[in-house]
Every structure is written in structure tokens, then in C-alpha cells.
């Protein structure tokens, strides 16, 4: 576990400065949209995940991780585990922005628990789709996948956020005003967990066979 933690730390060091680029975007989104967790949490965490993966594929850098005394399974595991600090950082950003917005206009931004759970599930699902492709495709293929993911996350998070904010029903649902549909929540969570397990298994199999040139 120590090696996995060190690999996660490496990913964090590689990509944290991308957060600095995203902060103005998030502040702008707070202003135009009165806040959506999708924008605050998913945007930075998935961007940081993509950035750390990209740095690990530049020039000769795949050789760096391959030459370290860590197993390939640990390398795969670390990529999934790095989503935890990235998501936590996104949540921290969300709370800081919420606090700042509420200082200017009290109660202008509130986040519901269901919204939080949904955003975490979306993050896990996105990473579960992205990482097997990362371990499978070469640099050229990944360039296209990266672009598609960035577009989906950047436009999708904004669009869904706006849709949620403009729909009173969805607002009430995310705020927990309706009685939660336990079966739906449990089903979604189970679906995401299955997707994560399948994704990790596929990534491990793909990276295990990969030759580092």
C-alpha cells in the first residue's frame, strides 16, 4: 500500500497545478450558474486524472514508472486511487466557493447530499471508462480519447448543472426534499461498483501485457 500511496502522491504532484488553471473557470461558473457540484468536483478531479495520465505518457516517461520498484498491479491501482484525493480536492473547492458565494449573497449556493453522492458516482464512472482506454491505447489513440473526455466533462458538467438548477423538481430531489428512492440509489451504486471492478480488471489485464518502449 505504501508504494500505491507514493504513486498517488506522484500523480498529485504532477497535476495539482491544473487546479490553479481551473479555479478562475470555477469562479466564473459560480457567478453564472450559482453553483453546481458537478462543475466544482467533477471538472477538477477528472481534469487532474487526465493530466496525470498524460504526463505518464509523454516522451519516455512510461519508462520511469516501469523502472521503479513497484508492480504493474500497483501502478494500475494507483491510477484509480488517485481519484480519491482529486475528488476530495474538488469537494474542498466546492465548499470554499460555496462559502465565498454565501458571504456575498447568503444561501445562494446549497449542496444536497444526493447531489454529492451522484457526483461521486459520476466521477467513479468516468474514471472507470477512461482508465482502461488509457492502459489500452497508444499515444495517438489517447490523444483523441483525452480530447473527447475533456469535452464531455467540460460541456457536460456545465450543461447538467444548468439543467439541474433550472428544474425545480430536480432541485428538490438533489436537496433531499423528496423521500429518497432507496432502490434507485442502491441500484446506481451497485452499477457503479460493478463498472469500477470490471474497469480495474480490464486495466490490469491490459497493462500487464503492455510492453514499455
Amino acid at each position, binding site marked *: 500500500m505504501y508504494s500505491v500511496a507514493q504513486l498517488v502522491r506522484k500523480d498529485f504532484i504532477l497535476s495539482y497545478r491544473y487546479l490553479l488553471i481551473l479555479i478562475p473557470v470555477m469562479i466564473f461558473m459560480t457567478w453564472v450558474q450559482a453553483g453546481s457540484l458537478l462543475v466544482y468536483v467533477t471538472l477538477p478531479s477528472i481534469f487532474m486524472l487526465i493530466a496525470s495520465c498524460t504526463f505518464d505518457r509523454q516522451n519516455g516517461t512510461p*519508462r520511469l514508472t516501469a523502472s521503479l520498484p513497484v508492480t504493474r498491479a500497483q501502478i494500475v491501482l494507483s491510477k484509480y486511487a488517485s481519484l480519491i484525493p482529486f475528488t476530495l480536492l474538488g469537494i474542498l473547492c466546492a465548499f470554499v466557493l460555496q462559502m465565498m458565494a454565501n458571504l456575498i449573497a447568503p444561501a445562494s449556493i446549497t449542496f444536497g447530499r444526493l447531489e454529492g453522492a451522484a457526483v461521486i458516482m459520476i466521477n467513479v464512472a468516468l474514471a472507470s471508462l477512461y482508465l482502461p482506454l488509457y492502459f489500452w491505447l497508444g499515444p495517438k489513440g489517447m490523444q483523441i480519447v483525452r480530447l473527447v473526455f475533456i469535452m464531455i466533462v467540460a460541456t457536460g458538467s456545465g450543461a447538467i448543472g444548468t439543467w439541474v438548477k433550472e428544474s425545480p423538481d430536480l432541485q428538490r430531489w438533489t436537496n433531499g426534499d423528496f423521500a429518497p428512492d432507496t432502490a434507485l440509489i442502491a441500484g446506481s451504486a451497485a452499477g457503479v461498483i460493478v463498472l469500477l471492478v470490471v474497469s480495474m480488471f480490464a486495466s490490469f489485464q491490459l497493462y500487464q501485457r503492455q510492453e514499455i518502449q
Partner: protein
Amino acid sequence: MNTVSMEGVGKRYKGFELSDVTFDVRKGFITGLIGPNGSGKSTLIRMMMQMVRPDQGQVKLFGQKLDGDAARLREKIGYVSDESYFYEHLTLKRMKNILAPFYSRWDAEVFHRYLDRFELPENKKVKELSKGMKMKFSLAVALSHSAELLIMDEPTAGLDPVFRRELLDLLAEQIQDENRSILFSSHITNDLDRIADYIVFVNKGRLIFEETKDTVIERHALVKGGKELLDADVRPLFIGLRETDLGFEGLMASRDSAQHLFGGLALIEQPTLEEIVYYTAKGKGEQTYV
């Protein structure tokens, strides 16, 4: 005990095949892995690092067969690649902070000593370093965790002669510790002439020889003479042959045979490592007219 044993390893790629290569890297010695570009040197090194898996044969590191993922053994290896593989946007200090925790025997004092010796500023980004400085940083990292085996893939390629000489001196210094072994791949044979104890020569994916450097040089003979000495019976005895209008120059695998055939008739010299590589790679094909 051999630090590395390659036993009949093979690998097939589209347009290239590494076939049945067997050699050892002996403990306490510098082994030079030579061969022209594309001969399979880097593939062999990547097999040792488990970046590439052999289709046949087996690799042993420190006496252990490389089955599964031998990550633990990589702690004892200092790997220096022909190209920089560090994150270009990070400073050397950040890069060190990333790498050091992976090695239980990381010695910060030794690392800083090498940074001082190589005049590497810690706060400079990797992308701001010259090729030589990147190589120096790579070496500083490789030498700072008490590696028992240094694997260096073309470390001198593209370096200026001053640093090349410095690097060779440094390696000679490292091998004073008899527990350490060095595998040094290069197509610049002069470098290996200076420091290697053993030479492993691969050409077109095949092992040509694995011997001590002195034996290799003493065993071969470079024959220079007039064209009238060449006939259909003699030509096949040469490993490589270069013919001009004025005469020929050829490499023979046995000095005794050269003496027996050409003694008194032609000039018989001791070849350099470079000449051995050149004639072996070239073969006895074409004629050169001058």
C-alpha cells in the same frame, strides 16, 4: 554468482527477431553490450527491466528467475536510459521528492554530493537541462540508492567528449565496489574499449560473442594485403572483408589462422573493438573502389 543471466532469450517483432541470446553480467565487472543500431541491445535491456517480456528463454536477476512481477529486485537496479524519462515540467528537487520514497536505501547525502559534483541546480526544471545534464541527473538518481546493478542503455550517445570521459571515469570509480556490476550498452566502441571487462556483441538480433575484452581483441586479426591473395577458398575465412582497387582489409576470427594463411604475405594487425564491430556487421559483401 552472476548478477544477470540471459538464457536463450528470444523476441519476435514485425521485421525484427531477437533469437536465442545467452550471456551473463558478472558481479563486480563492467560488461559492455555492443552492436549496431537496431541490433537488439535495448530490447535485451528492457527484458532485464521487465518492460518487455521474452517470447522464449529466461532472464535471471541476482540469481532469481524473472517470473511474475519482480518489482522488489528493481530496488537493487540503477537504470539509466538513452533518453531522459523524467517529467519535463518538474524541477530536479520535485523529481527527487517523487523518486526517493520508492527506494528504501535512498541516501540523500549521496544524491546531493552528486548534484554538487555534476553542478546540477536543484531548482532548475528538467526541460531546461541539456542532454548531458539530464544524463548526469539520471546518473545521480541511479547512484543514490545503493544499486547493486547499474544498467545503462546508450548513456554516452549524443554527449560531448568531455562528459563522456567524465562518465567513464565515474563508472570505473563505481566498480571499485566489488559488489556492484555494470551493464553498459553502446554503439560507440571507444567507450567500451576504455572501461569494459567483458564484451557482449549482438548483431541483427543474434549473439556474436561474449568474451573478455582482451580475449576478443587478441583473438581476432585484421589482415591487410594485395588482392592477389584473395581467392574462393580464402574469402569465406573472413568475418568481414573490404576490397578496394589497391587491395583488401579483412577481419578474421582467429589470429593463428591469419598467421598460418598470410604470415609474411600480408600485414596482420590487432583490430580495435570498432573494427571488429564494423567488419562483423558489414560482412564480406560489397567492394569499395577508391
